[in-house]
Each structure stands twice: as C-alpha cells, then as structure tokens.
C-alpha cells in the first residue's frame, strides 16, 4: 500500500518517541486516516475514559493517498475521544501538514499520557523529539508557528498547534495547521492542551513510498483530475465563489438557521454571502475577497483569502489583523452571522480570524453565542453577567465574546463550555441547538429532513460532513431529492455516511465528491494499494468504519435516546419559506434508519451485522 508502514508513538508521560510498524492487517480492513485511526483508538483506550485525562489518546493519521499525486491528497485526521461530546472525535484538516507527515516517513502519530510541562514534538524525517515549549505556552497559533520556524531557522516546517483556547480547555478548541486550516470540531485541541502538548512541527524530505503500481496510479489520478476540472462545481463554482455561495441558496430554500434556530431565513443573508465578498466596499473601495487558495495537491482551490476593512470598528486600532487572512467559509459565516442575526460581514471576518488565531471552532462558538443572545433576550442572562448588551444582531457583542473566549477571560469562560453545558448551567438545556453536545452546522433539519436525520445519527454529534445529504436534497448531486420529504431518507443518509468514510479514510477531500463518486476513487486506491480495493470492498469498508465508530459510542455509554434533535426542531415549525409549517420528523425516520443499518430497535448492531462487517 501507499504507506511508509511506520507509526510514531509518543509517550508524553515518559517523554519517549518510538517507531513501530503500522498494523497492515488493520490498514487492509479500515483503509487509513479516519478509519484506521479509529481502529487504533478503539483498541487502545477504554471508551469510558475522561477525554481530558492522561488515559485518553490523540492520534494524527494520514490515509494511503495523503501526500501522493491524487488531487486533494493532503488531508489528515485527528482521532480521539472528544471533550465536547464524550463521543468519538474525528476532525479532518487540509493544508500541508498531513502531506508533510508522510514526507517525513511516517503514517501516523499516537500521543499518549501527559507531559509534566509544556512541550512540542519536532520531527525531521527519522528524528523525533519532544522539546520544551514553556516559551510557547500562552501564545496564539499564529505566534507559535512563527516562533517555531524562527527557532529552527526553517520557514518550510509545517506546524499544527493549539492556541490559548486549547490550553484553557475550551471545549471546542481546534488544532490549527498552516495558519488557517484546522481539525476543527469536537474539541480535539482541548485534548492536546490537556496533555501539555503545544504543537507538532514537521519537516519531511523522504517522500511517499510504497505506491503499488506507479504508472497505473499516475493514470488513475490524472483521469480523476480531469473529472474535477470538467465538472462545473469543482472546476468553476468552488474556485470562484467558495463554499460561501451556499448562503443565498440555503436562505432561499428556507433552511438557514437564524437566531438560534428561531427562524429559518435571515433578512441579511445577502450581506454576508459569497456575492457580497466579491463586491467593492463603499467604505474603502476594495473587495473583501482577495483570492482563492488551495491545500496540498488540490486542483479545486475552494479556500478564501480575504482582507478586512481596516476602518471597521473591530480592527481600526489593531493593524495585525489588516493583512490577508483565511475565510470566510460558509459554515463560519453562518455560525458567526445568521445564527446570531449578525449581518456585518467585516465583524464575521474579525471573529473568524480570532477563531483561527487562537484555535477554536467557529461553528460551536457562533452557535453558543446564538444561545447566549437568546438567553439575554429572555432576561436569563444580563449585561452585567456577559459584560455587554447582547441582543440578537449585535456585532459588538459577537466581537467582544470572541475576544474574551480567545483570552479565556470573563464570560468567555462560559462561552468556552459550548452551548450544551452553558444552557444547562443557566436552566434552559432545550436552547442548546446540538446533538450529543455538538452544535448544528448551517442547515436546518426541518427544511431539509435528511440532514436532520444525519445530525441525529452522526457519530461525532451534529455534523454536516458525516453525511452531506444537502448535496442531493438541495443541490441535486448526484440526483435531486425533495428536501422536506422523509421517504427514502434513511437509505440516502446511510449511503452518504458510508461513502464519506471512504473519502476521509483515503486521505482526500470530501469536496471531490461533488464530482467524483467512489468509482473515481477506486482506481486510485487500487493502483496505490496492495490487495483488493474493488467497489464491493470499498462499500464494505465504509460501512465497517461507520459501525466501528458506533461501537465506540455505545461502549462510551451512548444510547438510542442520544440519536435525537432538540425539541425546537421537533415542535416549533418553520415560520417562513417553502418549509413553512414543517417540523423535523426524525423520530419517524429513525426506526427505518436502524433497520437499513442492520441495527436492533435500540440502535445496536445485530450479531448478524457485526459478523457481516467483521466487527
């Protein structure tokens, strides 16, 4: 297979770094990255472990296509038990860090234990050592990158780090790599912080080894790149407008969660959309969007690089934010904007920069601010408690709370709990728009029924990239289905969920799936990897990975009652748009979903399913 066949095991308690062979039997059964990392985690920890204890482990895993010539082959995954949810956490990131790990001659890093003092891991090909990070503790991700590169006198080092939020155990802290890319969800950065691990710095010049049939791989990856180029979405739509093009689409179909899901359409959606990022600003005569950007090996280049308005109140006295920076992407723009009723594009960019700078998930952060604003409007939270007046729509409150969360000060500590714990603390658990403790992304589960079922059953809590049925239900990829219908949705959700595990586990970007099906991935894997990688096997492995994640969560104590949506989505109908009057029918779809999955009525895989999948 396209493996270095080498795992780096770092014991932070003992301060040791040891090489060990990659378990190729597991690689054959779980492909790589997300799937293989989950197998290692499942075998090595007790799923009931406290996520922030030294007994939890944190795995950084590449896939067989990571670092290769496959388009978008730069992805890596962080697998651990997530503090936000208590479920399996599996956060995927692009940039250049994942490929660099392969170039250094490794496939995976397993961190275990806890260091007595702050450290960072430095890897230069075979050499791996823990170094003192006392001088980095308290620094942002951006400062940490600069300081490590400076101290090694090497600008080509690739770095993944935590900011102050990871150190402060913000429950939704990220691990940020290459300044603007992140393993973003479920609080994987807090786990890293709990281990006193500040950063991982990589320098690799070995390259990728083990491609089975190089000529066949070259042909397969080139054929697949042509498909991406010729497809209107991956060849034109994403590079030109980025993910943000969805803001107006989802608003128009009445599924843009607004003001903590009280509404499903946002009157200022157009002001925070991709089209708005292309317009010339009246204030300074410049466009918000500067250019697009690509991760390692990517031939799509959906990333956004923008420049904030220097005269905006958030940055007028902070020149360090005036330069080009990552964002806005759709999920962040939604969570920081529509979810709070904030229609100020520059304020969203500012909050997004703070999320990148100090490493916390803009989805959970924004959604938690949405809950805070609702509690404020209800009179449950006051100006004195929060430190500012915080009605829906307040850009000042958004910026203020982002600053406090970055610094871990004042009410920022409360926001750092995430919406579930915060809403419980203030007596209104029903106002947390989350599943298994993780907040919804940018699609309403009432107007788009399939995505609601996907949220309820997603193994890492509410998440769109576990099974992106929006592609079918709204965008017509690969076929159009009716968003408010429930018939056929359990099957659709399962199909998307299982196929997604293959894209993630191969080490490529899920966005290729707007043009590629598994039939485009299969020849690349077959050429790169030893053994049988037929479509039949890929389908089996995809389902196996999903079920292994489910087994982890069941062993951690999750049950059927956790496969549910908040009461607001089940009881409060959409007020406007084509889904007006509609609520989520998740409870009707769930039994059929379990049946399609081969699970019993409690959501547990049957003995027959376990045997079929080799679990």
């Amino acid at each position: 297979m396209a493996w270095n066949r080498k795992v780096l095991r770092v014991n932070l308690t003992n301060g040791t770094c040891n090489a060990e062979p990659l378990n190729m039997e597991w690689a054959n059964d779980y492909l790589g990255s997300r799937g293989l990392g989950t197998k290692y985690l499942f075998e090595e920890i007790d799923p009931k472990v406290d996520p922030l204890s030294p007994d939890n482990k944190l795995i950084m895993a590449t896939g067989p296509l990571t670092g290769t010539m496959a388009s978008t082959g730069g992805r890596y995954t962080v697998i651990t038990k997530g503090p936000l949810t208590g479920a399996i956490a599996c956060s995927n990131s692009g940039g250049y860090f994942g490929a660099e790990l392969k170039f250094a001659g490794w496939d995976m890093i397993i961190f275990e234990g806890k260091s007595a003092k702050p450290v960072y891991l430095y890897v230069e090909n075979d050499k791996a050592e823990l170094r003192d990070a006392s001088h980095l503790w308290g620094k942002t991700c951006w400062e940490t990158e600069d300081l490590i590169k400076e101290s090694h006198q090497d600008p080509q080092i690739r770095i993944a780090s935590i900011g102050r939020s990871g150190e402060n155990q913000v429950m939704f802290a990220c691990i940020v790599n290459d300044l603007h890319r992140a393993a973003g969800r479920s609080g994987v950065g807090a786990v890293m912080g709990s281990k006193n691990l500040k950063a991982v710095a990589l320098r690799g010049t070995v390259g990728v080894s083990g491609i089975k049939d190089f000529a066949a791989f070259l042909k397969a990856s080139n054929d697949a790149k042509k498909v991406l180029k010729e497809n209107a979405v991956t060849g034109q739509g994403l590079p030109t407008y980025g993910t943000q093009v969805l803001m107006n689409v989802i608003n128009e179909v009445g599924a843009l969660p607004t003001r903590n899901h009280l509404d499903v359409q946002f009157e200022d959606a157009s002001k925070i959309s991709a089209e708005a990022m292309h317009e010339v600003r009246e204030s300074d005569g410049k466009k918000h969007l500067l250019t697009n950007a690509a991760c390692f090996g990517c031939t799509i280049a959906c990333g956004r690089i923008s420049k904030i308005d220097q005269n905006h109140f958030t940055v007028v006295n902070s020149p360090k934010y005036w330069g080009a920076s990552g964002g806005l992407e759709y999920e962040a723009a939604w969570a920081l904007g529509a979810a709070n009723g904030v229609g100020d594009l520059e304020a969203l960019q500012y909050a997004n920069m703070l999320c990148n700078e100090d490493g916390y998930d803009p989805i959970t952060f924004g959604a938690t601010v949405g809950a805070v604003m609702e509690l404020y409007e209800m009179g449950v939270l006051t100006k004195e408690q929060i430190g500012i007046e915080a009605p829906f729509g307040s850009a000042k409150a958004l910026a203020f709370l982002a600053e406090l969360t970055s610094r871990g000060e004042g009410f920022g500590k409360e926001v750092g709990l995430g919406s579930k714990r915060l809403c419980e603390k203030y007596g209104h658990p029903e106002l947390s728009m989350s599943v298994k403790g993780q907040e919804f992304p940018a699609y309403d589960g009432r107007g788009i029924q399939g995505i609601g079922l996907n949220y309820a059953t997603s193994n890492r809590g509410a998440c769109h990239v576990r099974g992106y049925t929006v592609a079918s239900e709204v965008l017509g990829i690969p076929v159009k289905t009716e968003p408010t219908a429930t018939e056929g949705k359990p099957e659709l959700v399962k199909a998307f969920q299982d196929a997604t595990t293959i894209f993630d586990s191969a080490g490529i970007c899920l966005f290729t799936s707007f043009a590629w099906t598994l039939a485009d991935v299969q020849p690349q894997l077959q050429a790169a990897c030893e053994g049988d990688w037929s479509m039949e096997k890929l389908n089996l492995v995809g389902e196996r990975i999903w079920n292994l994640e489910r087994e982890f969560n069941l062993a951690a104590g999750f049950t059927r009652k956790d496969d549910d949506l908040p009461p607001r989505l089940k009881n409060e109908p959409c007020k406007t748009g084509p889904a007006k009057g509609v609520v989520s029918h998740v409870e009707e779809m769930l039994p059929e979903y379990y049946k399609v999955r081969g699970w019993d009525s409690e959501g547990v895989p049957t003995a027959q399913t376990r045997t079929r999948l080799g679990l």
Partner: protein
Amino acid sequence: MNITLKLFATLTDYLPAGTKGNVAQMQLADGARLGDLLDELRLPAKLVHLVLVNGAYVAPEARTEHRLGDGDTLAIWPPVAGG
C-alpha cells in the same frame, strides 16, 4: 404581473442593466412561462442548474411549461456546492 428575479454567482451578469446586487423586479404578462423568461434573459442552458420558485425546486423537465404567478420569486444558480 410582477415577479422578483434573483440571479446568483456567475449568473449575476445576466440581470437587467442597471440592477444593483442580485435582485431585480420584473413585469411579465399574466401567466408567463418560466421557459420563455429563461430565453428572454439569454441564460446559458448549462448555467441554469438550480431553479427555485418561492424557494421550491423546479425540475428541468418542468421548467419550460411552468407558469409563473404574480408576486413569485424566481431564483437561479449555476452548478454550485459547498459545505
């Protein structure tokens, strides 16, 4: 009758001259068909991907004959996606 026309992403260039942003108000004959309006706007067929009338999807095979009504909002996108 009057309708609201919204063209997004690369289709913005096809809005009537003088339009600001993505939205234009249009006056059409009563019972006008969607297919005729698409022809009038000279939208390239391959860029007419996602067609919503009042937020509801209109399938390609139904577009030619679909009758617009007074007060309708028509929104069109080229092939786009995100996540």
